[in-house]
């Protein structure tokens, strides 16, 4: 049987959803038999490949770089899954949303800095005005809330999606 091409993406999040993904113990071995992980923080690929079957997105969309990436990922993915509260609701990254970006950067990198005071300019993407959920930018096929979603929820969702079933999250996954 042809293996499913699975990718994972880390936008504005804490990597907790990826930790939860790894936390499924022997479940990872079962998954490895059905899917190749073709892109993500856990593998080496530098460029998001073409024709990915399933992509799990962790994190909110917070910068122009995130916008560019998620649009490219959407175009190259069959089933896009928003994994965890940051991707689904923008969660903790959204706590900056009522503060103007300039004011925020000034507070953190100038007033709050012990040394090298000054706004970062080189090699860092421009922040958006607000951090927003993934579905504000591209079509999302499945939302999996949780901070993070438990490894069992992730395993259930991924197993269902790989098998072509529509996951029934029912009352298993909640915000927070």
């Amino acid at each position: 049987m042809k293996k499913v091409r699975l990718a994972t993406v880390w936008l504005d999040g804490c990597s907790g959803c990826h930790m939860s993904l790894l936390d499924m113990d022997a479940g990872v071995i079962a998954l490895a038999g059905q899917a190749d992980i073709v892109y993500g923080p856990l593998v080496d690929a530098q460029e998001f490949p073409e024709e990915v079957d399933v992509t799990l997105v962790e994190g909110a969309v917070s910068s122009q770089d995130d916008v560019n990436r998620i649009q490219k990922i959407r175009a190259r993915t069959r089933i896009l899954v928003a994994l965890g509260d940051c991707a689904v609701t923008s969660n903790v990254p959204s706590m900056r949303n009522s503060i103007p970006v300039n004011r925020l950067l000034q507070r953190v990198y100038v007033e709050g800095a012990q040394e090298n005071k000054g706004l970062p300019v080189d090699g860092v993407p421009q922040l958006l005005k607000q951090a927003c959920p993934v579905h504000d930018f591209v079509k999302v096929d499945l939302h999996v809330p949780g901070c993070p979603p438990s490894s069992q929820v992730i395993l259930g969702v991924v197993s269902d999606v790989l098998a072509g079933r529509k996951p029934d999250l029912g009352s298993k996954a909640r915000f927070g």
Partner: protein
Amino acid sequence: MPQRVLSIRIDGELVSTTEGKTILEAARASGKYIPTLCYLEGLSAVGACRLCIVQVAGIDRLLPACTTPVQNGMSVTTKSPKLAEYRRIAVELLLVERNHVCAVCVSNGHCELQAMACSLGVTHVRYPYDYPKLPVDMSHERFVLDQNRCILCTRCVRVCAEVEGAHVWEIISRGIQARLVSELNQAWGDAASCTNCGKCVQACPTGALSEKGHAVEEMVKRNDNISALAVWRGVEA
């Protein structure tokens, strides 16, 4: 004078109740579940959250079960795809109106709004979030008011007025500007009429009112004793 016994149908099942009861009371008395957020047994009902909406045969708009009195022969539907959709919308609109960041809330895991979203199958919100800038009032010696989590259910307003008799809480402004305030919009810590009883905190369904000294997930509330006290004192007229 004995109250008149009425017969109504709830989801097709014949239920006996008495005149003056609401649809919600009749349903609960016969073991039927209707979701609620702003309702708390023993306090007056206000129909603020719209979670308890039901369909009544012959009426083409949805009615809140907590404030609609039963009428003889009434036929009530409490579950349908249409009701499920409108209840999800009600929860989603509550979630976009304030900053309900569950992951860093004192009530995470013990929150009625969070549990309601989960039980209704709300996995995401289809409307744009408002991200309002809202204050947190830490001025009270023992308690905290976090406007970011408030859903304006007014359980605190009612428990304070109807059970404690202190009338500390009130809602000011209208619509999206509506806010919970203590005593003529002063800091809670300066509210001379507050008796520090904490009933508002226990009645609050979310993390809007909490006890100081609790970190994320640590604020567990009890409101069964509020209902018991209210019923015992005959608050429910």
